[in-house]
């Protein structure tokens, strides 16, 4: 017999009513794995008894590459780690090198960086929430959110010519100044996002009864577990802990901006569920929009400055090491950089938020329904480019 359940049929004959566990491979080519993740699920009917994630399908030797190219050359590779939120990666790396070299960019550059990072955060969360609704089975919100992401990408493209991998943050500055009219275009976008997309998203999806019922009690991650598995970013805040590096250890003058740290509220069930993790991302979009508004206000009153002013002719940090972390859209992105005084990093190690989020997966997935596993993967919001690097 050639069917997958041939083993079952044999057991049936021998032992009466007996069932066996079935191993299901979800991925690496599967519509719900957000890249090339492979999940090995041991299922008993619809129940998942054990889950094991397999990563590494997108390994590109980022860290080894970084040892062989000069510091500006690392930037494009850093872009390619979390390709959904490239601005966050390069910002983190640029800040790391700047700290080591003791460069302090002008307030103008810092404001542009905040502006770009937060626009990128909105775009990234739009993808995260959009694909998540698609995981749950609703197609329409995905396209509505991607429509708004496109507008952000338009702004990026207008500024630096690239739509996905920008190479925008440089050590000591940014690659291009904002074009004329950028502020107005950004405000046009925000006006539409704040008044149309965001309320629509809340009304139609986030408070939708089926959506809530699917997620409110699923994949609950209590705060202790979140801490012990080193979850960061929205995944940690979804468990109810208001930890955000933009508040706790501000960089790029984040302390001057007024925004709130979104935490999982547990409106519909226990705190830390898939719903809460998604909820944090939704609220963060609104908070990022607030920050972008403030950054635009600053830019309006600010004197234009040379964005290349503090860019060193030759990036050659002194001998030493540094660990610096920043709040990327997916959580704390840390760079551990060792310099031997040359023009290439001696060693670069990345602490990836998605990687640590994935480490909690097997624990959370145990005993779930098959459909909930998909919901869990989506709620952790992983990008395989960053896990595998």
């Amino acid at each position: 017999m050639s069917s997958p359940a041939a083993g079952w049929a044999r057991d049936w004959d021998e032992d009466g009513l007996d069932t066996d566990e079935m191993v299901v491979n979800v991925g690496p080519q599967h519509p719900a794995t957000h890249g090339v993740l492979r999940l090995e699920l041991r299922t008993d009917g619809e129940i998942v008894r054990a889950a094991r994630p397999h990563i590494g399908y997108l390994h590109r030797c980022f860290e080894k590459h970084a040892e062989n190219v000069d510091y500006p050359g690392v930037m494009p590779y850093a872009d390619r780690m979390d390709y959904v939120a490239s601005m966050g990666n390069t910002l983190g790396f640029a800040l790391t090198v700047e700290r080591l070299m003791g460069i302090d960019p002008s307030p103008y550059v810092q404001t542009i960086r905040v502006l770009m990072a937060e626009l990128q955060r909105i775009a990234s969360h739009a993808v995260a929430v959009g694909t998540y609704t698609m995981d749950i089975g609703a197609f329409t919100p995905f396209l509505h959110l991607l429509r708004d992401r496109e507008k952000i990408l338009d702004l990026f493209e207008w500024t630096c010519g690239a739509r996905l991998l920008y190479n925008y943050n440089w050590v000591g500055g940014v690659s291009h100044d904002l074009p004329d009219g950028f502020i107005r275009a950004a405000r046009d976008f925000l006006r539409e996002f704040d008044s149309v997309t965001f309320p629509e998203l809340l009304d139609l999806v986030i408070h939708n009864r089926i959506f809530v019922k699917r997620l409110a009690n699923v994949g609950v991650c209590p705060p202790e577990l979140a801490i012990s598995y080193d979850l960061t970013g929205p995944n940690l805040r979804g468990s109810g802990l208001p930890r955000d590096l933009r508040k706790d250890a501000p960089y790029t003058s984040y302390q001057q901006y007024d925004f709130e740290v979104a935490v999982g509220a547990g409106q519909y069930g226990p705190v830390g569920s898939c719903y809460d993790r998604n909820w944090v991302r939704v609220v963060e979009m609104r908070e990022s929009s607030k920050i972008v508004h403030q950054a635009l206000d600053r830019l309006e009153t600010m004197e234009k400055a040379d964005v290349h002013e503090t860019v060193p002719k030759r990036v050659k940090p002194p001998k030493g090491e540094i660990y610096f972390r920043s709040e990327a859209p997916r959580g704390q992105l840390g760079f551990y950089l060792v310099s031997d005084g040359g023009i290439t990093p001696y060693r670069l190690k990345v602490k990836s938020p998605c990687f640590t989020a994935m480490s909690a997966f097997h624990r959370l997935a145990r005993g779930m329904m098959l459909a909930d596993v998909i919901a869990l993967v989506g709620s952790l919001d992983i990008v395989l480019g960053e896990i595998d690097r």
Partner: protein
Amino acid sequence: MEATYAILVRWFPALAGWPTWAVVLLSAGLPALVLFHFMALMPLVYVYAERKVSAFMQDRLGPMRVGPYGVLQTVADAIKLLFKEAVFPRGVDRKLFVIAPLLVNVGAFLPFVVIPWGARLQPADLNVGIFYVSAISALSTVGLIMAGWASNNKYALFGAMRSAAQIVSYEIPSLLIILVPVMIVGSLSLQDLVLAQQGGLSRWFLFRYFPLMPVAFVIFFVAALAETNRAPFDIPEAESELVAGFHTEYSGFFFSLFFLAEYTEMFVVSAVASVLFLGGYLAPLPMLQQIGPIALGSFQLGPIALGWFWLWFKAWVLVFVMMWLRWTVPRARVDQLMYIAWKVLLPISLGLVLVVGALVLRRSTANGFSWDRWFGWPLTLLVVGFLFAVMVRALLWNRSRGRELGASGSPSPVQVWR
């Protein structure tokens, strides 16, 4: 068949002398052929409609390239699917793999035998009509399970098991609800069911027994959604979980057969729902039942019966509702689906059967409550008015949004630059 025979004999008097088998074959085969082609080509229109509906809901245009407004897109797709290679993966049980989509189509198409398009426009008026419909459409479940098992694919197997569980569960409330109109009429024939609703909108079963029948209709519609594997109950082919469920391994022609069956089933359940609750081929006002006769000088046109149009129209409205639902709501989980079937729909439909059964037995309420005459019409007006208001509001919102976006005068700098 008799009607066809009469017409054929009128046109070709020589036919009366033919042997019986030839006459039967001709007078039964001809309408069957016409109907089958009508039904088999309809999914082209549904798919186009679905793609356009989804596109408009998702702020995009949908197919626009092939033909004006992309009307020929589905034709092109169908041709592409027919000419594509049908891949048989290794380990597939070939016989079952081929039979399964055919069986699914049998279940989807055979109900058309009893659907009445007019007082005489019905292939066969079986006296067990509605029973026949539910029995024969359950056949497609066998096809789905067969497809899942034969595919030698775990996702397909998951999809098949889910679909079996789902359809078996939802058959029960839907059958119980079918009992309600059947009890009122006292017949299983679809023709009798329709004729019992004669006399305009207020006599349709949807508007009788005011609070009860609308509930019954909603339950029937929900169960129909689940039986046709449409969202939010599309778990057997949940693409984010099971890739494509039971038809994961199918390609080319056999895949298109599954596609055909899904859309045909949508139309069948909608047509059955309109027969049971919305008066079938009866017009909302008796005067709209036919056009004419119109006298054009010496030539008299008509009367043209419009029954087929009304059934078609009602079924289309329901199909559109299904499409809206699919592109609006997320998918329910398996256990939630079972919960809805067994703990919500089943008790309510059981209660409905008991209550309406008792009401039918009482002489004074045998044909509906006394307030139905007063409630039926306002209810209809309310529903139609509400839908109209929603559409007008959506249109106005669209306009105002367009104006708001264009309000800044010149187009945005980004657009200028691009």
